[in-house]
């Protein structure tokens, strides 16, 4: 397996002067293609910050990130947007669906800025909604769906562009345990299909679904564990 993602000494702080908070310190992380990595650690340890940095949604104060041999922070703002579109699928705890677009439209959204025929977009989005178990609910608006269903729409949206890397920030955080398990099973399937996934989670029970766990504390990477 080749290395998909590699960071070199990534540091990030927030605020100025006395209010300065160090969120991440000199993170060196390497993720192989096809891994399912869990990011665990106490609240405030820097998990979300690291995830946004890995997805090129944010820039660090120091350090480098290579994904597929691209120096991500070397890209200009617009190129970085193109990079996110092609390489990253984000899934958030708060779902972050567009409230006035239907489930189907939300899934098609990342394709809107690609020159893809609308018919092809629809076919792809409908197939994905079926895959995440939402057949027949394509035309519902987000508020007409349960939390678990909204999360499934968000997952379908994250993979519609066939990105090599999925970054999920506590995707089960807003769901009850049963729904959480179902979502984890869905991620497991995606992993088996070959997707590389990095997921922040608080729930150590879910480590049984993943192949690796990275432990963060006070902005530092403590260890990376293989899970069989």
């Amino acid at each position, binding site marked *: 397996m080749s290395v998909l993602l590699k960071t070199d000494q990534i540091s990030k702080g927030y605020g100025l002067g006395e209010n300065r908070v160090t969120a991440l310190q000199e993170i060196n992380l390497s993720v192989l293609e096809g891994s399912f990595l869990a990011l665990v650690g106490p609240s405030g340890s820097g998990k979300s910050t690291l995830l946004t940095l890995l997805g090129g949604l944010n820039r660090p104060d120091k350090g480098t990130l290579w994904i597929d041999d691209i120096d991500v922070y070397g890209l200009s703002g617009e190129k970085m*947007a*193109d990079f996110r579109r092609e390489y990253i699928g*984000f899934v958030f705890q708060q779902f972050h669906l567009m409230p006035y*677009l239907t489930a189907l*439209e939300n899934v098609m*959204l990342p394709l*809107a800025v690609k020159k893809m025929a609308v018919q092809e977009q629809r076919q792809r989005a409908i197939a994905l909604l079926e895959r995440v178990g939402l057949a027949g609910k394509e035309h519902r608006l987000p508020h007409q769906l349960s939390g678990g269903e909204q999360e499934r729409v968000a997952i379908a*949206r994250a993979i519609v562009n066939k990105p090599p890397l999925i970054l999920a920030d506590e995707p089960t955080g807003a769901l009850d345990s049963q729904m959480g398990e179902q979502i984890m099973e869905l991620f497991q399937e995606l992993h088996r299909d070959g997707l590389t996934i990095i997921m922040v989670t608080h729930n150590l029970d879910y480590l049984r679904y993943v192949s690796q766990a990275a432990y963060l504390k006070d902005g530092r990477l403590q260890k990376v564990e293989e899970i069989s």
Partner: protein
Amino acid sequence: MTLWDIIGSSLKRRWRKAIILTVGLFLATSISVALFSASKAMREEVADSFDLIGANISIIPTQEELSLNYGGISLAPSQKDTLLQDEALQKIRTIANAESIARVAPKVLGHITSDGQPVTVVGVSFADELKMKKWWKITGDQPRGGADILIGENLAAEKGWHTGQSIDLNGKTFRIFGQLVPTGSDEDNLLFMDWKQAQDLLQMQGKLSFIEVSALCSTCPIDDITAQIGTVLPGSQVTALKETLVAREGIVDRFTTLSLVVGAVTAIAGMLLVFLLVSSTIRERTKELGILRSIGFRKSHLMQMLLSEVALLTIPAGAAGYLAGLSLSRWAAPIIVQMDVTVPWNGKEALLSVGITVLLGLTASLVPAWRGASKDPVEAMRML
């Protein structure tokens, strides 16, 4: 899914603000268009009135002896050597401001005797004279040939002449094509004929008694024209009669200034409205914009979306604003200035007002749209 689908859904969701923005810009455009087209129509109407008022420059030979009176201008027909020459007509057309000269009307004046009584003959160019003296009301025909004459009411009564009659003057036959409805001036006693005929009849070949010029002085300073004519015609006295229009021009000038001020204020108010509405919708949409950025929309995609939304609303606002504004000025302009003004529909101006409305809308949205599109997506998504 295309950017247009997103724009459509977004507009549908925020239809109230969309309507306020459209109506606001519609009002701003219609007020500006109404004022602009009314003042433009008035300015054109004043320019046209120079024709209506008639000559605004008169040219007479310089002389001492005063014996004949016509239209307030005293002339001495006996001193034929001091008269103007035919060439003067061409010379006037050579001045620097020649393009402002609408009409050059020659006049040949003299007395003849008919049935033992003196008759004052005025030789004119009918084509110019009838255009310049729009207040003339003529009963009868249009002049058809060189031998056609026009007579004043008093003269007709005195002589017992009537329209259509042929009369003999110094052995030549003339046909009366029309009679002048009384104007209350000297004109009621005069006999008008073609100026070439008058020159023959009065033995004044190649000579002119005076010349009237009508210049379009909304496009030029009349004093310059007067001076220029004085230079090409030495030995003549060139006088501008401009008082008549000055007062009206003053009203129109003041109205034009007022229109510009009100139009500018309206445009600024319209832009402010757009700025506030767009700022507030973009603030509401900060999170949305952050989501779009996170899934790979470029800043430029967001700008394109936000500005297209504004453009989509401003196009109908501009078009409807033009229609409403023009209708308003067609109705109101004649009442405001007490003038018989016509405000024509104008495709170019319609396009221009749509263009300006869109441009103002986009300009006012540029800063809030840029701010929204540039916001840090991580921060943006934290928003509720």
